[in-house]
């Protein structure tokens, strides 16, 4: 009877503690956007200045993946549904007329 109780207590404790431990390990990655205010390639750190004027210091290493997005001319027919886009438009005569459209092409896996 005593053993059973101990086992039950251990199993319960496991179910309570395990998710908390998993959350600690899987800390969500944070994202910051802004202008590069400082970039030190010797000390491997950079400072990003956000729109709100907040300074975020971030270290980088060899594992840090750097991707540059190069703008290339395209056609409307190249754009697929669900793709992330930014449009610049003007309201004219009750209609929104697009001046420019930018679509971010998703990086292929492994790139």
């Amino acid at each position: 009877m005593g053993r059973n109780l101990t086992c039950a207590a251990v199993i319960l404790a496991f179910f309570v503690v395990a998710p908390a431990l998993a959350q600690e390990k899987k800390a969500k990655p944070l994202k910051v956007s802004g202008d590069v205010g400082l970039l030190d390639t010797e000390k491997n750190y950079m400072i990003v200045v956000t729109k709100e004027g907040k300074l975020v210091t971030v270290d980088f290493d060899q594992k840090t993946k750097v991707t540059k997005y190069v703008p290339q001319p395209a056609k409307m027919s190249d754009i697929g549904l669900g793709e992330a886009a930014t449009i610049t438009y003007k309201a004219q005569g009750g209609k929104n007329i697009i001046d420019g459209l930018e679509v971010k092409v998703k990086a292929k896996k492994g790139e």
Partner: protein
Amino acid sequence: MNNLLSITGVVLVIFALSSCALEQEKVAPPAKPAAPAVAEAKKAAPAEKKAEAKVKAEKASGDVGLMDLEKNYLILVTKEGKLITADFTGKTTVTKLVPQPAKMSDINLGQSAAVTYDAGKGGKNIATSVEYTTKAKKGE
């Protein structure tokens, strides 16, 4: 008698002329402010036009929810769930941003970038990825 009549006549003429002049003086002042008002109106009109032109340009980001190439319109779904219907024409410039691998040393100061990082132990933020967009060269 003639002298009296002539003097009276002269006085009457002078009175008549002076009263006309006084009336003109009284009427004249309201005319002056009218000129600046017209000038101000002329100045304000182009300013309003400029303001309208500035206000109209808007920017929106989201996912393409619908694209009709026959009717030339698309629907953009923003992060907030707002649907924006917009028409495009032959003049609409379409640009695709193609990802390419780069190095940290390629990044210039002042360039806008999106950094994904882990808030590691010891209070240090370790970047896992850095994304930035290069500006299109003139003529592209």
